[in-house]
C-alpha cells in the first residue's frame, strides 16, 4: 500500500471542523468516491474533528490518498495531546459521553468507515485512524 499524497491540517476551533469537512469532501470527490461514500467519510471526519475540539481543545488531521493495487482510498488520522480516553470500550458504546453530546461520535465514525483504529490512554492523547475505500 502506498501513500500517494498527504496533507496535514490543524484543528483549533469549531470553525476548523467546517474546514476539515470541506477538505475531506474535496479529496473524496477527486478520488471519485460515490455521493454516499463521500457523505459517510465527511460525516465521520466531522465527528472526529469535533471530538478533538471538545475533548482536547486542539489537534490535527492528516489526510492521505492511498493506492493498494487497484484499490483507491482515503485515510484520515486525527491526533491530539488531550487527556486521552481511559476506557476505549466504553467510549465506543453508543450513548456514552463525557462531553455533553449524544455519545455517537466515536462509534458512529467507526461504523461509517471501512477500517478504524484508536490509540489512546489516559494522559497520553488520542490518535484515531479511519480508512474508507472507494
Amino acid at each position, binding site marked *: 500500500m502506498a501513500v500517494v499524497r498527504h496533507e496535514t491540517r490543524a484543528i483549533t476551533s*469549531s*470553525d476548523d*471542523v*467546517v474546514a476539515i*469537512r*470541506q477538505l475531506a*469532501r474535496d479529496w473524496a470527490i477527486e478520488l471519485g468516491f460515490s*455521493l*454516499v461514500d*463521500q*457523505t*459517510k467519510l*465527511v*460525516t465521520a471526519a*466531522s*465527528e472526529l474533528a*469535533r471530538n478533538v475540539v471538545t475533548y482536547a481543545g486542539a489537534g490535527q488531521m492528516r489526510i492521505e490518498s492511498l493506492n493498494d493495487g487497484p484499490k483507491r482510498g482515503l485515510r484520515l488520522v486525527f491526533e491530539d495531546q488531550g487527556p486521552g480516553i481511559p476506557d476505549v470500550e466504553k467510549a465506543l458504546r*453508543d450513548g456514552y459521553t463525557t462531553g455533553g*453530546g*449524544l455519545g*455517537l*461520535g466515536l*462509534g*458512529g465514525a467507526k*461504523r*461509517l468507515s471501512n477500517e478504524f483504529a484508536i490509540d489512546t490512554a489516559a494522559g497520553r492523547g488520542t490518535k484515531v485512524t479511519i480508512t474508507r475505500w472507494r
Partner: protein
Amino acid sequence: MERIPILKMGDCLLVTIQVDMHDRLAMTLQEDLTEKIAHTRARGVLIDISALEMVDSFIGRMLSFIASMARVLDARTVVVGMRPAVAITLVELGLPLTGVHTALNVEKGMELIRADDQGAVNGRRQA
C-alpha cells in the same frame, strides 16, 4: 453577525439551512427561533435541510433540541428535504432524531403540521 433567516408562512415558520452549520450559528438559530415562535404564535416549524450535504450528531442534536423547544411552546417541528445520501449516512451513524418529524418537502411538511393541528383540535372537542 451571520444569521439564518426565519420566514413566516401562514401559521408556520420556515427555516432554510443553506450554510455549513457551526456552533455559534446553531446557538443563534435556537434563540431566534424560540423568540419568533412565541412572538408569532406559530403552530409549526419547518426546517428545510435540502441544501445540507451532511448531518452529523452535532446538527442532529440541534434539530432534536429545536423540536423539543418548539414542542414546549406548542409548535410541531418537521424537518424537510433530507438528501438520500444524508439519510443513508444518518442511519449508519445511529442518530435517533428524537421528537423530530420528517417530510419529503415543504408542502408535505405543511400538510403534516396542519393534520396534526386538526387532530389536536378534534381531540380537544371530544374531551
